[in-house]
C-alpha cells in the first residue's frame, strides 16, 4: 500500500459515495485530496485504506460522513426489532398515514413496516394529551412486556407510547424493565419528544433497526485505525461514535449535510449571503437554499420512512450523471429516475452500460480528456456515441449529438425543478443569489441552471469534486434536541424551566473540553391555540408579540386576542466550524500552461472551447466562455456569455460577460 505523503495528516474528512470514497486531509500545512474506490459490501475497507495511505495516527482527527445507515435502510438490511407500544395501537406503525403513494395504481403497494405484527407488542397504559396518566403502567405490565420482547428474540427494541412527549415516565419505566435483556433500547420520548405518534414511533423503530449495524461498522473502524473518530450527522455537525451509535437515525443525511455546510461557507467567503447549492452525483442531485444560515426542516422521509428529527433542508432528486435516458412508446424522452449506478455505470465507462446523462455530456464534448474521476476511470467515447444512436432515432433526430442535447435539457429541467422546490416554492427568490455547484458534475449544469433561475453568479469551489469530505473535515461538533411542550406563550417561567432543562441535556452531551465556547441557540415552534400549523421563532423575550408580528407579516393578519401556544422548543449548540483553521488558499498557480482545445456542442452548434486544468486558469483576466475547467474529480463548463475569475479563496466565480 503506497502512502500519499510522508507528513502524517492532522485532520481528515471522509465521505463515502457510491463509486468513490473521498478524503480531504490537512497535512504538512496543505490540503491533500485522495479518492479510493468504494467497497460497498464492507465500506470500512475503503475508509481504512484511505486513512492508512494518508498516515492517520493517534493524533489524527477523522470526521466521517457515512452512508452505512442510509444504505442499511434502503436495502432493508437492519436488525430484528420489537416495538413496545400502547395496547390498542399496535398497528399504527403499519397503518401510517393511510395514503397510497401512487394514485392510479390498480395494485397499490405500501412500504412494509420494519417491525411485523408479531413483534409489535401492546402494553396496558395510557397518557393523556396533558401528560396525565389515564391508565398507569404497572410494574407487572412492564415485566410482562419485557418478557414478551425476550421471547421475540429481537436484536433491538423501540418503545413508543401515546403522548410520551408530554410525559415520558412510562417509556422510562419500560426501558428499566427492558435493560436486563442486554439489547439496545430506543425510547421515542428520548429520541424525538414531539407530537405525532406515527412519525415518532417510526423514527424510534428506524433508529432501533439501524443501531446494531452502525455499531458493528463503527467498531470495525475504531479497531482498524488509531485515529480519533467523529461522525457527521444530518445537521452537518459531528458527534463522537458513542453518540452516533445510540442515535444512528441522525446520520441518514450525513453526506449531503456535510456538502451543504461546506457550500454555505464557500458562498459566504465569496460575499454571498444567499445561495442555491447544487451537488450533482452519480445517481442523484442534492439541492438547498441558504440565506445567512443553514436551512432546516422539522422532519423528512428517507426510503419511505418518516424521520421526525430536524435535518438540513436538502432536497434530493433522482437525476445525476448515471441517470438513464429512454424514449417511451409515445415518443416522450425520460431521464431517470433509473440509474446505471457504479456498475456497469454509464456506457462511456466501457462496461456495456446504458445511455445516461454522462454519455450525453461526453458526446457534447463537455467532458474532455481520456479519463474520469481524476484518472481513476478510462473514458470510452465511442461507446457513448453508440448508445445514443437509438435514442436519437426514436426521437426523430439524425445525429446522436441532438439526442444528447435533449437528454441534457431534460436533466437540467429536473434539476431546475428541484432548485425551485427549495427556493421559489418556499417564497425565497433565487434571483440575485449565487449558485454553488459541486459534486463531480455540478459544474457541468451550473450555467444553464443559473440562467434559468436568474442567479447572478455561479461559484465553483476548490475541491468541488470532494466538497462533502471537505465539509466533514471542517464541520464543528454539534448537538440538537427538541421537545414538544404545548405551553401557553405567557407561561414564561415554565418555558424558561423547560428550555434550561433541555439546554442542560444538550451541554451534557459535549466533551468537557468542548463546553467552553459553545454557541447555543433556542428556538420554538409557535402557533395560535387550536391551529395545526406552527411558525419557527427564535427563543427570547416577548415570544408572543413577535409571533403576532410574524403571523401578520406572513399571512396578512394577526389575532391578538387569541391564545398563543408554544408547541415545541429546541436547543441547538455547536462548537464553531473549523474553516478559519483550514488552509484554503488555492494551489500555486501553474504558469505558462497553454490550454487544450475541444469541440463542444452548445445550443445546436459546435464551438471551439479552451480546456484549462484548474491550477492553470489565468488570474490576471476573466476567463470567457466557451471554456472548460478540469479539476480533480470535477468539471466546469463555462457557457458562452459567462466568464470566470479566480476569487482570492480559490473559488471560481462566474458572472455574465458584460
Amino acid at each position: 500500500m503506497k502512502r500519499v505523503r510522508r507528513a502524517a495528516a492532522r485532520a481528515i474528512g471522509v465521505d463515502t459515495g457510491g463509486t468513490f470514497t473521498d478524503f480531504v486531509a490537512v497535512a504538512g500545512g496543505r490540503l491533500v485530496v485522495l479518492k479510493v474506490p468504494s467497497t460497498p459490501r464492507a465500506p470500512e475497507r475503503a475508509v481504512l485504506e484511505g486513512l492508512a495511505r494518508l498516515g492517520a495516527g493517534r493524533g489524527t482527527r477523522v470526521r466521517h460522513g457515512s452512508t452505512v445507515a442510509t444504505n442499511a435502510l434502503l436495502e432493508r438490511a437492519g436488525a430484528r426489532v420489537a416495538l413496545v407500544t400502547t395496547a390498542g395501537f399496535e398497528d399504527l406503525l403499519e397503518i401510517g398515514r393511510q395514503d397510497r403513494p401512487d394514485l392510479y395504481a390498480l395494485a397499490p403497494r405500501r412500504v412494509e413496516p420494519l417491525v411485523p405484527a408479531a413483534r409489535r407488542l401492546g402494553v396496558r397504559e395510557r397518557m393523556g394529551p396533558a401528560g396525565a396518566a389515564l391508565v398507569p403502567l404497572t410494574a407487572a405490565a412492564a415485566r410482562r412486556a419485557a418478557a414478551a420482547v425476550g421471547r421475540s428474540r429481537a436484536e433491538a427494541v423501540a418503545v413508543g407510547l401515546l403522548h410520551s412527549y408530554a410525559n415520558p415516565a412510562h417509556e422510562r419505566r419500560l426501558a428499566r424493565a427492558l435493560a436486563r435483556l442486554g439489547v439496545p433500547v430506543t425510547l421515542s420520548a428520548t429520541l424525538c419528544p414531539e407530537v405525532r405518534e406515527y412519525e415518532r414511533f417510526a423514527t424510534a423503530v428506524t433508529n432501533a433497526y439501524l443501531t446494531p449495524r452502525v455499531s458493528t461498522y463503527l467498531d470495525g473502524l475504531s479497531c482498524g485505525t488509531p485515529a480519533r473518530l467523529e461522525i457527521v450527522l444530518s445537521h452537518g455537525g459531528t458527534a463522537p461514535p458513542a453518540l452516533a451509535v445510540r442515535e444512528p437515525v441522525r446520520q441518514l443525511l450525513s453526506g449531503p449535510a456535510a456538502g451543504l455546510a461546506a457550500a454555505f461557507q464557500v458562498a459566504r467567503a465569496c460575499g454571498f449571503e444567499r445561495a442555491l447549492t447544487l451537488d450533482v452525483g452519480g445517481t442523484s442531485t442534492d439541492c438547498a437554499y441558504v440565506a445567512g444560515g443553514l436551512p432546516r426542516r422539522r422532519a423528512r422521509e428517507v426510503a419511505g420512512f418518516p424521520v421526525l428529527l430536524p435535518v438540513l433542508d436538502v432536497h434530493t432528486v433522482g437525476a445525476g450523471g448515471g441517470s438513464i435516458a429512454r424514449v417511451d412508446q409515445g415518443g416522450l424522452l425520460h431521464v431517470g429516475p433509473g440509474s446505471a449506478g457504479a456498475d456497469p455505470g454509464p456506457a462511456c465507462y466501457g462496461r456495456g452500460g446504458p445511455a445516461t446523462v454522462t454519455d450525453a455530456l461526453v458526446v457534447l464534448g463537455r467532458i474532455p480528456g481520456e479519463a474520469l474521476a481524476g484518472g481513476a476511470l478510462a473514458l470510452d467515447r465511442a461507446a457513448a456515441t453508440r448508445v445514443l444512436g437509438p435514442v436519437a432515432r426514436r426521437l426523430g433526430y439524425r445525429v446522436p449529438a441532438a439526442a444528447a442535447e435533449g437528454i441534457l435539457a431534460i436533466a437540467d429541467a429536473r434539476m431546475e425543478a428541484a432548485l425551485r422546490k427549495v427556493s421559489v416554492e418556499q417564497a425565497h427568490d433565487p434571483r440575485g443569489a449565487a449558485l454553488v455547484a459541486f459534486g463531480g458534475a455540478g459544474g457541468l449544469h451550473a450555467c444553464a441552471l443559473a440562467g434559468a433561475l436568474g442567479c447572478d453568479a455561479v461559484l465553483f469551489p476548490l475541491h468541488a469534486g470532494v466538497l462533502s469530505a471537505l465539509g466533514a473535515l471542517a464541520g464543528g461538533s454539534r448537538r440538537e434536541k427538541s421537545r414538544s411542550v404545548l405551553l401557553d406563550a405567557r407561561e414564561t417561567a415554565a418555558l424558561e424551566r423547560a428550555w434550561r432543562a433541555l439546554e442542560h441535556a444538550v451541554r451534557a452531551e459535549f466533551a468537557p473540553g468542548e463546553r467552553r465556547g459553545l454557541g447555543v441557540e433556542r428556538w420554538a415552534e409557535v402557533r395560535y391555540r387550536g391551529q395545526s400549523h406552527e411558525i419557527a421563532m427564535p427563543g427570547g423575550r416577548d415570544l408572543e408579540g413577535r409571533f403576532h408580528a410574524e403571523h401578520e407579516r406572513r399571512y396578512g393578519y394577526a389575532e391578538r386576542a387569541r391564545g398563543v401556544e408554544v408547541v415545541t422548543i429546541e436547543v441547538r449548540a455547536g462548537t464553531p466550524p473549523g474553516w478559519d483553521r483550514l488552509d484554503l488558499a488555492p494551489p500555486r498557480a501553474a504558469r505558462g500552461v497553454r490550454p487544450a482545445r475541444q469541440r463542444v456542442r452548445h445550443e445546436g452548434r459546435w464551438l471551439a472551447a479552451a480546456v484549462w486544468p484548474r491550477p492553470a486558469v489565468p488570474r490576471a483576466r476573466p476567463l470567457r466562455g466557451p471554456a472548460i475547467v478540469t479539476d480533480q474529480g470535477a468539471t466546469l463548463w463555462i457557457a458562452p456569455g459567462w466568464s470566470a475569475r479566480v476569487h482570492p479563496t480559490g473559488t471560481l466565480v462566474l458572472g455574465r460577460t458584460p
Partner: protein
Amino acid sequence: MSARTRSGSFDGVALALYDGLFAAAAEEMGVALMRTAHSPNIKERLDHSCAVFDARGRLVAQAAHIPVHLGSLPRAVEAALALGPFRPGDAVVLNDPYAGGTHLPDITLVTPVFLGRGRPDFFVASRAHHADVGGAAPGSMPLAREIHEEGLRIPPVFLQRAGRTQDDVLRLVLANVRTPDERRADLAAQLGAQATGTRRLAEYAKRRGRAELIRAAHALMDYSGRQVRAGLAKLPWGRWRFADALDDDGLGRGPVRIAVTLTLGRGRVRVDFTGSSAQVPGPVNAVEAVTRAACAYVLRCVLGGSFPVNDGAFRALQVIAPAGTVVAARPPAAVAAGNVETSQRIVDAVLGAFARALPGRIPAASCGTMNNVLIGGADPRGGGPFAYYETLGGGHGAGPGWHGASALQAHMTNTRNTPIEALEHAYPLRVVATRIRRGSGGRGRFRGGDGIVRALELLVPARVTVISERRARGPYGLAGGEPGRPGENRVQGYSISRTGERLPGKFQMDLPRGAVLTVASPGGGGFGRARRRR
C-alpha cells in the same frame, strides 16, 4: 417513429419539458396551499387539489392529489367562465354542486391568468374540503333531504376583483359557517395558492413566450389523446354490463342501484349509466361532474402508463348519465355523500364492467367507502364550537397475482389521517384504539386487504354523523374470490347494551359524554378460488 413523436412543432424533448413545467405549476400551488392553510383537514389530511386550465377551460395539468376533485374540476372552470369578461386579479369562488361544485364542503377558487392584453390565456383552480360550511350538522354532511339543509350554497361569484377581496362576499360566507376564523384563513391560503399558480405561468410566458406556452398546452393535450387512443387500441371491442349498489340512501331506502354498460371499440370508451336508480331523498346523489370524475379515474387506472392527465386524455371517454338519476342528480337533491360514497360505488361498477372485458387484469372491489365521521359541538376548554372530520381507509381488492393492501385509502380519495395526538389536543375526543381489522379481507387465491377499526370516546356531549357504506354487503370478489367483510358501526355507552349497539351505515345522533363510537371499515374482495385447507 418520428412522425408519432412530434406534435405540432414540439418534439419528444419539448413535450417532456412542458409537461414538467405545467405539472410543477399545479404542484407548487398545492404546496403553497398546504403550507399556509390552517385547518387540520387541509394541512394534515391534504384534502385539496390544484390544476391548470387553458383559455377554454380545458384541463392542461394537475397535481396528483384527490381523484374525485380532479376529474370534476373542469366543470367548476366551465361554470366560472360564465362570469366573464375577466380582469387581472379576479378570482371566482363556488361550491354549488349544481353550478360547478361537487358537494358543499368542497370550495373551489378559479383565477384567470393574463399573459398579455385582452382575454385570459389560462385559468388556475384549487379545490379544498373545508371542515364546515354551515347546515344542519357540524361538518356539513348531515343526513339531509335536500341541498338547502346541507350548508351554505355559493354559486360562482367573485371573491376577488382586480386584486381586491370582495369583503361583502367574504362576510356573507363567514356568517354562515361554524368556524369562521379557520374558514377565513383557509380561503386566504387558497387565494395565495391561486396567486402562486398565476405567477408561475407568467414567469414561463416571459421566458418562453406566451404563444409558445399556449401551443405547448395544446400539443400536450394532443399527445395524451394519442397515447390514450393507442392504449385503447389494445383493448377488446364489445359491450359489457355490470351493476353494483349502495346499501341505502341514508334515510332507509335501498339498495340504490348503479348500473353500467361499458362499450369499447373504435378508439372510444362509452360508459352508460342507464338503468341506475332514480335520484333518492337521502344525500347519496352524485352530480354528473362526480360521475365523470369516477369514470376518468378508472380509465386512467386501466390504461396505466404515464401519459399526462389532461383534457386530451379523456376526449375518447363518453359518459351517459341520465339526468334525474343517482349519478346525475337534479336540484334540490341532497348530494353530500354523492361525492364521498357514491363516487366509490361508481368506480366499483365501472371497474366491474372492465373486469368482464379484461378478465385477469382488474382487481376485486376495494372497501368502497370513505367511512366519513363528523363530530361537532361545544369545546368546554375554549367554549367555542368545534367541527371534526375524518375519513378511514380500508382493505383493497386482491388482484390476479397480488394480495390486496390493508388499511389504505382507495380509489376516489387519498387523504391522510389526523395524528391521534394532534386530534386529542385539538378536540374533546379520545381515541380508544386503532387497529387493522384482521381477517376482514375476502378469502381467495389472493386475499383481499384488511380494513381498519377505530374506537373514539366523546369527552363532551356532541352531535355525531357517520356516513359509511358496504355495511350490508361486502365489496365483491372476482374469479371465485369471496367478498370482503362488510363494515360495522357501533356505539357503546348510550344504551344498556354492553357490547354496544349496532348502528346503520349512515346515521346522525346526539351522543352523551362517555359514549364510544366504533367504526370498522370493510375488507377488500378476494381474487380467485381459495384452495381448500386440509
